[in-house]
């Protein structure tokens, strides 16, 4: 059985337009990430080994690498193309200078599905 620790609780004010249900977390292999094509926006959702979930913009601010193909460890993703590392909690780059990733609130619904709140 997969253990899921929602790291962020549902934002106090969920604006109904921006919240999406992405289905069960098991869609994303444990320790990996997948990209979701949401209306108007691609989002990378990370399923860390400790069960925590994170969501960020899908492409790397450096040269557009697909972050969902990166290596995830703890709360860090390493971009597959040139190895920039980002802190998934706040999107900060950890090596070199690069723009901050946009991050999105993510949590589990009462039914156990992954929920993400986009900016609207």
């Amino acid at each position, binding site marked *: 059985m997969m253990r899921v620790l929602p790291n962020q609780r549902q934002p106090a004010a969920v604006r109904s337009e921006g919240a999406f249900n992405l289905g069960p977390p098991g869609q994303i*292999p*444990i320790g*990996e990430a997948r990209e979701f094509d949401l209306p108007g926006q691609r989002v990378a959702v990370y399923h860390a080994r400790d069960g925590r979930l994170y969501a960020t913009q899908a492409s790397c601010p450096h040269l557009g690498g697909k972050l969902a193909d990166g290596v995830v460890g703890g709360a860090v993703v*390493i971009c597959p193309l040139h190895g920039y590392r980002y802190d998934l909690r706040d999107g900060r780059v950890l090596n070199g200078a690069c723009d901050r990733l946009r991050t999105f609130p993510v949590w589990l619904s009462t039914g156990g599905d992954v929920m993400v709140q986009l900016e609207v």
Partner: protein
Amino acid sequence: MTKQRLVVVGNGMAGARTVEEIVERGGMERYDVTIFGEEPYGNYNRILLSEVLSGSHDPQAIFINALDWYAERGITLHAGVPADNIDRADRVVRGGLVHEPYDVLILATGSRPLVPRLDGLHRADGKWKQGVFVFRSLDDCSRIAGYAKGRARAAVIGGGLLGLEAARGLLTHLPEVHVIQRESTIMNLQLDSRAGRMLQTTLQDMGIQVHTGTATTAMLGREKVSGLQFESGEILDCDMVVMACGILPNVQLARDAGLAVERGIVVDDQMRCVDDPNVYAVGECAQHRGQVYGLVAPLWEQARVLAEHLSEANPAATYEGSRLYTRLKVMGVDLATMGAKDSDDPEDEVILYSEPSRGVYQKLIVRDNQLAGAILLGDTAAASSLVQLFDRGTPLPQRRADLLFPSGATPAVTAPEQLPDDVQVCNCNGVSKGTIVASVKSGKRSLSAVCAATRAGTGCGSCKDLVRRITEWASDGQLEEDVTAHYYVPGVPLAKPELIAAIKELGLRSVSAVFGALTGGLEDAGSKTGLASLLKTIWGAEYEDERDARFINDRVHANVQKDSTFSVVPRIYGGVTSSAQLRRIADVADKYNVRMVKITGGQRIDLLGIAKEDLPGAWQDLDMPSGHAYTKAFRTCKTCVGTDFCRYGLGDSTALGIAIEKRFQGIEAPHKMKLAATGCPRNCAEATTKDLGAIAIEGGRWELYIGGAAGSTVRKGDLLCTVDSHDDVLRFMGRFMQYYREQAKYLERTYSFVERIGIERLRQALVEDRESICQRLDAEIEAAVRAYEDPWREGRAPLHRHQFVSTLPAGDAGERLAAVSA
């Protein structure tokens, strides 16, 4: 827990550094820290005083910690207050009106200049004559510079490191500078007499007049110094004198307190005084295992050990002594020395290279195949690599000349100081020398910190050596050794042998198990792929594969491209294909809209631009095994046409190449392995510059080369052995591969590995079987060969239904994907 009172006497390089290291390790939770500093400043970099004197550094620029650094951390600094007395019974340090009780005391009082006994040094009132100086502190430095203004001639007594740096500094203030050296050559502690004489010529060309074999007996002049008198009776008129005759550890305070003092304050491997467990000594005032040091590198090490111990970050940390490396910081002179300068042991090998017209003199002393000493004058390009060999006692390459002139015909390396600031050092990430230097100046203290901050050296890695040399130079010898450099992966604090032992002992079969057991569950993204590679080699079939520990290439068995599509390189054994195979490849190219079909540099065909979703289909249609062009594993074996067609062919290189590729396909290793088999010494398949290469020679025999390279590094492989048959080629190749798999560091190509181990030792182990491991190596590689499975079969049965999915469309997340109403 109530805090303990930690008192430090001496706010110089060692004292302040120890406190810094304690702070970094969270030690402020444990201690209230108080420092006595005789000098009325924060802490500055003493070794840069030479630069301050020569005007190339501003005094402000050499401060490491200004006064507010102490205040911000809640550290009490009594600046300008020397400690006068230690009462060990009551555990109190007194300095003037200040009384500081301690639980733990650190003595870091450094050294004071040794003042030679000279007639006429003092005036009638007992003070030194005007114009006489020593060179130790910032105040000395400004007094010397101030006095020199408008004067004509200075003399420096002492032709050692410090005297020469002082002389060079004085030359910027005065027209004429003399160095008086009692011994027959200068820098006699570090240089043999030939090098000493050569350096003397270089300095004289710069305008410094050197008098060797000249003992000073008296200072002339009434109130002010007006000249020096020598043993020979000769006199040198001068307006000022700087005495640089050596240093003496500052131990009076400790001696008065009844601590064991010989040349320095006697300490154990934790820097603890041998007769008082609450008192420690660090830096030039300490005597460790009979040795007193006068350079900063050892005291960095001491400070680190002491901090680990006192902060309890690692109470078992020990200092085991340092090996000495010296660099002269005189503008326009390149000089580096380490270890012994002369050899009196006939067993030693002495390697000499001298080019007097350019002022170049290089000497290496080799003892038991290790570097025992080196002098590099006039050209220090090899210094940083030699220091490493010296420091670690690494076995040396057989061709000793390679130590000074690396083979591979790389153009002579330029010294960092000669490079302009805007020169691009890292050609992958576009990082200039100026950026690296700025990063060091902003406080990055280790090579890995500089690389992480600037990204220099993080691309192909071929500039790493230059980055290291620039970093070393910019940090003026203050570079910290990267502890992580010895770790197998940065996130698990163990070197490869210890890590392997722990993994085996605890039976850790997956990457997450390693983190669980060895880092308290702390998962480090940058360590996962390295651990996966190691575990696979250790456990073979018992390895518990976790896909998230693999790089994307290894998760989908293809090479990621800049647009996030993938390239597919099927295996074409020995580069031999057929019309049917080519037709299939062409069909796949059409069906999956391949953007480019390319003959690779590795003698096969690359289909570029395939979407992740299409990989399983493309593999199935190709019906060819994976070429492993994406992973750290056996890649290809290039061949030439050989005996069947070529008029010169001596051995059937094509058949051998195919056999090699069939046998070793997919064998994983710390890095990729590229091979070649070539039919005669004309070497059309370039076997001498491959990780492993076989060359047919007359008489039905094959030469086997290992450790060759022609990528970012160029290296001719070393001949491992000459054998009689294809089977033997396969046998020795497999043996070397297994040895490399077991012994190499992660991402260490064979060209570095073979160089590091040395071909002689490899031959002894793999050909002569001196370690009795050959049978085992042969069996292990055989098992690995048998375990091979074509990873492309996974296309038919993915491990996870989304293994080959790149983007989940909105719909795929389930019909449940919908705007949620709160």
